[in-house]
């Protein structure tokens, strides 16, 4: 094998980002092609069919299912309000009639002669899709949504919680190695995307929620803190629908771990600028990582120090991060790529590489346990 490929997270000052923004069901697209949209503009809208309420009319009327239809005072497709009469029994000699009133509002969807069930569909709920990525609408997907494009600074995190959030970037710590504590969160951070250096504590997140912070970006989080934030122990990394009061993006991993210096530097250089963040993470086939997106402006400084490398290519001199103990979180460069597999301390035989951590310190690490730092 001439080259080896090890995917990494994207951390870049300038990249062309395309986002498909589509509805969960067919609806109406609100913008036109070649127009410019803001992050929180509604680009598509649909009506989600209402909830279904089955009503067992045969039971309520105490008649066989086949007799229900003859007693109904409503028809399929009819709009019903709460309290309306759905059916009435014939009574005895026209007396002692009993009525069935509707407990809900909705439209009569179906009536079954087999089971005597009446299906009522409640009012529909509007669903709106926001642009999320401020930029140009390059394609309109008829009845589905749009494709938006823009040059952005893009930082992918490793794990996040909470959905899409918007706000200006606000640096809370002075260095990438400083943990994010409650004392760093101030009242003027309301609505902001707060960036901390290293580990974020549960207390800091609580304080941020009190202040009304829109999102937090930090290097690490402790398992116990995550459990406290969510109120349960997360078993599988499929997130995005949590409602804890803000969005959290973790850039490096679990434990006491500093944010990569480069990530911190890029965010620092964009302080005060509007960002879109998304905590949604899906670590399965079709992996989805959380992200911070900041549109590029004319005078932005670019840091393309690593763009000499082909994406995913493992080569001598390439910067990387070790992603498993015993060197978890350490950053270094590839100093050797032995072709032959090596036997690890665990006894497993696998392909490895040599990492130079600087200061003359080197280590042999399985290729599976490194992640490239992608520009």
């Amino acid at each position, binding site marked *: 094998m001439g080259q080896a490929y090890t995917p990494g997270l994207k951390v870049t000052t300038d990249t062309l980002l395309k986002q498909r923004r589509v509805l969960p069901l*067919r609806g109406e697209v609100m913008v036109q092609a070649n127009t410019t949209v803001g992050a929180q503009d509604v680009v598509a809208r649909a009506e989600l*069919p209402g*909830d*279904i*309420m*089955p009503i067992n009319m045969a039971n309520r009327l105490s008649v066989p*299912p086949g007799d229900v239809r003859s007693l109904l005072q409503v028809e399929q497709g009819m709009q019903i309000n709460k309290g309306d009469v759905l059916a009435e029994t014939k009574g005895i000699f026209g007396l002692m009639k009993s009525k069935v009133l509707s407990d809900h509002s909705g439209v009569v*969807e*179906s009536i*079954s002669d*087999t*089971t005597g*069930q009446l*299906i009522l*569909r409640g009012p529909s709920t509007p669903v709106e899709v926001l642009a999320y990525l401020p930029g140009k609408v390059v394609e309109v997907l008829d009845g589905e949504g749009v494709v938006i494009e823009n040059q952005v600074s893009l930082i992918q995190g*490793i*794990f996040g919680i909470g959905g899409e959030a918007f706000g200006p970037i606000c640096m809370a710590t002075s260095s990438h190695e400083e943990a994010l504590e409650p004392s760093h969160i101030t009242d003027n951070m309301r609505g902001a995307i707060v960036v901390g250096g290293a580990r974020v504590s549960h207390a800091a997140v609580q304080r941020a929620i009190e202040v009304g912070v829109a999102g937090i970006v930090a290097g690490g989080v*402790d*398992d*116990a803190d*995550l459990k406290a934030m969510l109120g349960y*122990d*997360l*078993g*599988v*990394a499929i997130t995005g629908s949590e409602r804890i009061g803000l969005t959290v993006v973790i850039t490096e*991993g*679990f*434990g006491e771990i500093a944010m990569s210096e480069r990530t911190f530097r890029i965010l620092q250089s964009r302080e005060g600028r509007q960002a879109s963040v998304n905590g949604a*993470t899906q*670590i*399965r*086939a*079709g992996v989805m990582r959380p992200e911070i997106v900041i549109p590029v402006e004319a005078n932005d400084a670019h840091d393309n120090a690593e763009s000499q490398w082909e994406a995913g290519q493992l080569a001598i001199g390439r910067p990387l991060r070790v*992603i*498993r*103990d*015993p060197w*978890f979180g350490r950053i270094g460069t590839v100093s050797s790529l032995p072709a032959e597999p090596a036997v*690890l*301390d*665990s*006894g*497993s*035989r*696998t392909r490895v590489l040599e990492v130079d951590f600087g200061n003359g310190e080197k280590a042999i*690490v*399985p290729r*599976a*346990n490194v*992640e490239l730092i992608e520009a």
Partner: protein
Amino acid sequence: MTIDPNSINVILATDCGSTTTKSVFIERQPDGTFRQTQRGEAPTTVEEPFADVTIGVINAVTEIGEVAGRKLVDEDGRIIQPAGTDADGNPVGCDIYISTSSAGGGLQMMVGGVVKQMTAESAKRAALGAGAIVMDTIAANDGRKPHEQIQRIRELRPDMILLSGGTDGGDEKKVTEIAERIAPARPQPRFGSKFVMPVIFAGNKHARGSVDNAFDESIDLQCVDNLRPTLEEENLGPARDAIHDMFLEHVMAQAPGYDKLMGWTSAPIMPTPGAVGNILTTIAERQGKNALAVDIGGATTDVFSVFDGVFNRTVSANLGMSYSISNVVAEAGLDNVLRWVHLEGMDDRELRNRVKNKMIRPTTIPQSREALVFEQAVAREALRLAYVRHKEFATTLKGVQQQRTVGDTFSQKTSGATIVDAMKLDLLVASGGVLSHAPRMSQTALMLVDAFEPEGFTTLAKDSIFMMPHLGVLASVHAEASEQVFTRDCLVVLGTCVAAAGDVKWGKPAFSWEMRGSQNAEGELLGGQLKLVELTAGETATVTVKPARGIDLGAGPGNPVAHEVTGGSVGLILDARGRPIALPESRDEARDVVEGWYRELNIIDEGDA
């Protein structure tokens, strides 16, 4: 298509997984038997930018062709069938080509029935047996309100739905009600908005008309024989066949390149787990054995069993070694995981963070010995939990009236009792990364014994290259070839476990043993001891065990047993730890005990901590 088994000499098989397409090559030998001779693999190409599964298949097949010196793919990129020779007299092609698939997340189903413990459970068994992942089971008595059930159906995006309910001639209303809940929910399929949702109805045959009336043209309804025609009878075959047909017609046909692949194969493409079930059932039938196989992956753990000819499969969706490792630790509890760790000085907080880091970076591997020991401890708990779920699911039919005699007065047997009997288990097969790639075979063997706690005499084996799916489809075409390759090439026999159940007291005599055959040895084991006796691959011996009072090794408490055993890469494991294996409560004491077991099985070397 009918194929004459006698005309088959060269077999090519592929399994298209979510990430890797694996190919194996099987050839008839001069002595007439079949052996697996080559294998290859290539990344699966279902996803963009390729979006054509056949590209990965051709790559994996080409690899075999290159190693075997046999042209298997023609200039048009098609697999050459049947086998023959080219103009230069070189061998080309294969007689049959078969394949399984779990690409794109496999077959995902929702099932429904009237009573959760009866028809709905039978429907679940049919779906799992066909190789599906069951996303949810809807039943009239599942504890949810009708609108909650409808909401749930709306959220799911299954590939198909299996609906059952009512015995033939029984109640029609309840099952129609379930259909009426599915219909307005308008379940959306995973693939494509133009795809019509397939629904298989395998319930009361008299309710077919009313169920049909409940659905409109957005549903493709197919009615098959009732899977529970009477309470006492389960008839899963027609529903399973319908699932396989619908899988090919609807699900596979939507996946990129499968229409082409389906045209190449000599037998229908099967869902991978369905094929594993097929081979296990074939082997159990042909060899008259009770067998259990486990496949532990990153996200899920599948357990397959055949006891007294009855096949069961369970999928534990969130028990796995990477994507769902955090869930295993949460469900089992860290203390239960740590009882299998003999090393000192592991910090709980750091371990929990490590587990989460494995979850978010699932492809990493243990580098240090400490990390491996911890990962194998987690594996024991994942396997144990998956086995518990399997035992709970693999039961006799529930809701069946039992005729009791005076002899049953003190028996607690009821309908719905598990049919999984550790004492009756003859063969235990391991597959999946943490078991297949353990640096030492003895690690695999002990993980199996600790998690599944087999009793009496049990052969332990592993399917190191996961060939069971290929052989499962082959079994449907050529059962003999499939069995020969399974026994000789697919299984790596680790050895035999002889384990005591019953009233084992730690430190007191448990059983004496004597081995006569390829190797001769004898001895005595005390309660709590584990012993490894040399008996290498290909060697056989007769082992006679004489248990102490109250201890059972297969012939009842206190009764001696003699059994022919086979050796393997690990040997003969004598286990007097009792069932369930109960470790000392003190963590320090437990550590010492576990360390002793690991030393005995050469899992750790002399001098290692």
